[in-house]
């Protein structure tokens, strides 16, 4: 019985018995439970586990990391091939940060580059969402823990990610909670899986600084997105720029770091917004504009403005965050 279970969760190229041994030996911070419990939880999640060095384990990771990477990787979904970029940043993201992260991620995905991030809310989520179909989320916990809640819930971001052909990955047992050392290990893994890393936004104590540090150690090029000097979210990227990270001003900068370039953007559909409103939003992009500012500057009557914004939200042209409205895609 146990043998069948382990075969069901072992990735091709890995020996189920060896896997079971490794899991049993792993220092168990998974909150109790036998290795068989772990296997059962993995099976329920539809996860396949590969051991370091085996066929199902990324070669690049083994080669790049002196330690060779974590002992095993539990993968839900399919692993996209080809070059990969990591797009990371704070959970508490501004509209500007989310817009830039989405811009970079969408361009990368269109160019056939996989987008890696940490599956957290904020910048990570924006990147994953914009690159659905070509993205990998690296969890800072086990597969069975359900964190962060909005992403792990049924039909949430992680389910969408897997359904569109991407992967959700963890290097810990399924019931491991998101403890600090697990999150740190996740950051190192993100850096190790990528061919280039960009930090979009973060505060002075942001985890993305740690991830950038790992990337530098592993020889992965680091880029940072400049921002408004007054905003706390620009602290981490500006720190990195001062330490020699390359500026990332547009997708071309990021893609150049992995030896490719953005594909031509399709002609944009005509806007449904009143011209003065579109002008305001396009002029401010990627910064969002608050609705009351928009009402005042565009000269459009409040009721009509609200109706136009709703229509544009429904057809996906604009997006609203807590700090205002912005165009979803970069204006032409």
């Amino acid at each position, binding site marked *: 019985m146990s043998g069948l279970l382990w075969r069901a969760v072992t990735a091709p190229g890995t020996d189920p018995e060896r896997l079971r041994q490794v899991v049993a030996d792993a220092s168990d911070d998974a909150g109790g439970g036998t290795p068989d419990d772990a296997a059962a939880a993995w099976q329920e999640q539809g996860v396949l586990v590969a051991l370091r060095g085996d066929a199902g384990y990324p070669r690049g990771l083994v080669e790049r990391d002196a330690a060779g990477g974590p002992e095993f990787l539990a993968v839900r979904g399919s692993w996209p091939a080809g070059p990969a970029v990591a797009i990371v940043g704070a*959970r*508490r*993201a501004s509209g500007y940060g*989310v*817009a830039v992260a*989405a811009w970079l991620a969408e361009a990368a995905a269109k160019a056939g580059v996989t987008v890696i991030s940490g599956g957290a*809310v*904020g910048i990570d*989520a*924006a990147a*994953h*969402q*914009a690159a659905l179909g070509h993205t990998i989320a690296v969890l800072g916990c086990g597969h069975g823990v359900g964190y*962060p*809640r*909005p992403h792990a819930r049924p039909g949430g*971001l992680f389910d969408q990610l897997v359904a569109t052909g991407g992967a959700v990955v963890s290097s810990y047992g399924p019931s491991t909670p998101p403890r600090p050392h697990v999150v740190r290990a996740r950051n190192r893994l993100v850096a190790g899986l990528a061919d280039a890393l960009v930090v979009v936004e973060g505060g002075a104590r942001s985890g993305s600084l740690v991830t950038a540090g790992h990337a530098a150690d592993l020889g992965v090029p680091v880029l940072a997105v400049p921002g408004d000097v007054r*905003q*706390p979210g620009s602290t981490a990227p500006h720190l990195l720029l001062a330490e020699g990270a390359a500026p990332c001003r547009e997708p071309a900068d990021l893609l150049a770091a992995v030896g490719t370039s953005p594909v031509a953007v399709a002609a944009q559909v005509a806007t449904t917004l009143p011209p003065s409103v579109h002008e305001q939003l396009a002029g401010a992009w990627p910064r969002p504009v*608050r*609705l*009351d500012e928009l*009402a*005042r500057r565009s000269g459009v009557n*409040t*009721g*009509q403005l*609200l*109706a*136009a*914004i*709703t*229509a544009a*939200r*429904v*057809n996906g042209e604009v*997006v*609203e*965050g*807590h*700090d205002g409205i912005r165009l*979803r895609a970069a204006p032409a």
Partner: protein
Amino acid sequence: MVAFVRTAAVVGLEPWPVTLECWVGQGLPGTRLVGLPDAAVKESADRAKAAIKSTGLEWPGQRIIGNLAPAEVPKAGAGFDLAFALGVLGATGVLKPEHLRGVWALGELGLDGSVRPTPGTLPIAALARSRSARCLLVADAAAVEASLINQLDVVPVADLRETVAVLTGAAPGRTAGRGEPAARNVVPDLADVRGQPLARRAIEIAAAGDHHVLLAGPPGCGKSMLARRLPGLLPDLGVEQAMEVAAIHSVAGVRDPSAPLDLVPPYRAPHHTVSIAGLVGGGSGIARPGEISLAHEGILFLDELLEMPRRNLDVLREPLETGEVRITRARASVRFPARFRLVAATNPCPCGHLGDSRTPCRCRPDRIERYRERLSGPLLDRIDLQVTMHPVVAADLLGESCEESTATVRERVAAGRARRAARRAVGGRVATSTALERLARAIDALALSSRSFDACLRVARTIADLEGAALVGPDHVDEAIAHRMPVNLVGAA
């Protein structure tokens, strides 16, 4: 000998006719009041005694029994003092039966014999008129309120001496005055609110369609300011409504009895630490109206909505739905009307500064999510308009206001309400099929709850009324959705 004096008790909002019977006869000297009196009523004996003696009249040295009939209706408050004193005087022969016939008396007595007003004057006056009272004796201060009832002879009496003189015919009865409109509740003007075009629009829609509103924003962005100005946009109360409101306020003891009838819809703003009884009514003894009933036909402003305990929010749901609150006690249930318009205010996150461009938010993202979740649920579903406000930029606050005044917006609201009433009288189709399809599609695309369908349609209907459109169209629907969109907080676009 037994004397009879008419008076009344108020249970909930209902006045009950009470006959005070007073018997004086052989027995150990002492006074006893019966008929379910509460503590204040029992003290009537002492006050009446001092008042009668201060007037220079004799207090009988025999056994006195006062009965407040019917015996099984609970009696509360000091309003029976005057009736009891008159009863004693009637029983001792100072007042003859013909002096007391048809006379209703209501008032508290001071130890010097002065007559004081008591809560509930208005509904009692209405009862007296309906029972064909010959006259109603009340304190000077309460005379204006009692005179709101037509075809009732209201006789203001300053003290017990004057009361006796009027009843025996020694002095003519005075008439009540008109009352000074001084210190009326003046509603501040909407022009004071700078900027905030969205919130102003939402308030206008709320006034035109009697919708409930939630204002979310950092401290100091103007939520209470706007709420305070909403009553100014509403039309004056009709006389019947104003009387009902006055009766509720009179019973609660918050109405100035010397004030004329107030036609401005009431505005109540209890602190978030208000108890459940204070909020919906109740309290020990006879149930008294709560804030939601004091806000009947008007506005109830609840600031810091999420600081209120969950239980308090839960008890609001039924009155929001039914427009009344029923308080059931072992002895009786009491119904208070509570058709109020709710304006609720909240911070967008625990620290209050999410979306504030001047101060960054310090909250952890999962805390923000949990905080917002407390807003969801059955209460929120009944709030049709949900507006996010931001602090106004300093430049907007300086200089002359070029914002619309209350008067301008009130006109539009009145026109919208008139169309709404006319349309409802006729009935028929409400929205074009394009509009309904548009609404369904938007709800799907924007992942709104299915309950939003009805709410958005209601708001769209009001928007169409304001515009003068016969049917709800797609644009009205789009705007309505914008007034109900929860803002995306953290994370993915």
